[in-house]
């Protein structure tokens, strides 16, 4: 028998030719009490013959549809009723005291059962009332995540400390000024001016401030050209390290880019 069930409905109508669905009753006492109360019978003076007949009739109507185990409980009660009925037919002893009444034990059980039915109603009321109180977490709120939400032991301060260590971002490409076209000659002049002032020029000094591919290409071509003219030497300590441009022997000539190239570069 399932422990979860909708609240029991009120009992069926009972008439002269009643039909009782046995499975609606918790057990034989429930059915018996129903027969007595629904017919306004005095429980202390149960007409056993009539009640027995009704009980057995209800039982035989439903015997095929109820489980064997439950049927046994009803059959046992039917046997008790029949026995009481027989006892009542026997000649009464002298003293008709209540204790001697063969119905007494059955009435005691019925009253006890009825008492607990009242408790059941109290419990149902309490259960319904309790069901109207809600604790924290009753409303689900936002759709639950696939995984259990992770609670972090992480303060804002700890988070901000980490954030403060993140290097500044490169300026995003979108806000870079449009690149200017630059000629190799302009880079040659720049390079010559720089080499007049200092013996060593870092190669990226020629294009990094502008940050565009055009400047880098022009600077590279200018450096190669001046290296060809031996105005400078290109040096790099190891692959991918910084490239340096060193003042060369042919620095005297100021304005020449004229001579044809003998080779692409001396070194590198």
């Amino acid at each position, binding site marked *: *028998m*399932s*422990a*979860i*069930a*909708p*609240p*029991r409905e*009120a*009992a069926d109508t009972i008439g002269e030719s009643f039909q009782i669905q046995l499975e609606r009753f*918790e*057990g*034989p*006492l*429930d059915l018996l*009490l*129903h027969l007595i*109360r*629904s017919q*306004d019978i005095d*429980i202390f003076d149960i007409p056993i013959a009539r009640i027995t007949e009704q009980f057995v009739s209800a039982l035989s109507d439903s015997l095929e549809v109820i489980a064997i*185990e*439950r049927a046994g*409980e009803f059959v046992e*009660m039917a046997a008790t009723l029949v026995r009481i009925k027989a006892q009542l037919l026997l000649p009464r002893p002298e003293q008709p005291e209540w204790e001697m009444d063969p119905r007494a034990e059955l009435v005691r*059980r019925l*009253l*006890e*059962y*009825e*008492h*607990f*039915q*009242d*408790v*059941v*109603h*109290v*419990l*149902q*009321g*309490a*259960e*319904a*009332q*309790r*069901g*109207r*109180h*809600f*604790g*924290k*977490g*009753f*409303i*689900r*709120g936002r759709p639950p995540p696939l995984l259990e939400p992770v609670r972090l032991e992480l303060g804002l301060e700890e988070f901000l400390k980490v954030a403060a260590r993140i290097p500044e971002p490169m300026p995003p490409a979108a806000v870079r000024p449009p690149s200017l076209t630059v000629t190799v000659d302009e880079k040659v002049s720049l390079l010559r001016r720089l080499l007049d002032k200092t013996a060593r020029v870092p190669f990226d000094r020629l294009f990094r401030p502008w940050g565009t591919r055009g400047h880098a290409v022009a600077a590279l071509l200018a450096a190669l050209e001046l290296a060809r003219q031996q105005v400078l030497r290109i040096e790099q300590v190891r692959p991918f390290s910084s490239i340096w441009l060193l003042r060369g022997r042919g620095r005297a000539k100021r304005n020449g880019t004229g001579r044809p190239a003998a080779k692409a570069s001396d070194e590198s």
Partner: protein
Amino acid sequence: MKAEQVVEATLFASQTSLTAAEIARADEDLDEDAVRTAIQSLREAYEEAERAFQIYQLGDGYQILTRPEFAPYLERFDSVPRAPHLSPAALETLAIIAYRQPIGRIEIEEVRGVSATSVLRTLVDWELIRVVARGDGLGRPLLYGVTQNFLEHFGLKDVSDLPGPDELPVVLGDLQATVEDVQEADTDPVPAAEDLP
């Protein structure tokens, strides 16, 4: 930090009921009596300020719950699964155990007139009852009693909250009246939980 505030924060943060002893663990300065005093004064403050929630005693625990009159509003939301209503068989068995505990299976079956084996197993599984002792009789039968969970399910402070035999509707009362009571109970149940101090 006032004791009341610490007790309030603790009750507020918990999704289950907490005993006075459990609440007192929040602070060395608290003991069970101080917790109970704080709860009483919080209850009065909530009552006076017409808060939508109140502190209720369930068994030996305390829990903040919404007041029943807000149930219709809250039921509009998607909610966590609620405790199911118990079947008549389960309620009957619980009623008998609550009034007669400790009590064994045989005695329960005598009162109900039907087998109690499977319903007892279910009630133990749901922690509404538990084995509290063993009887002296043949085979030392298991004796059952109701649990804290039982009190929480029905919103009771104690089994003694249940009406005594004399307070129950007259035993010889007319069945129809009782049936009406049950029907009414669904819409306007007995004010048991609301009366919880």
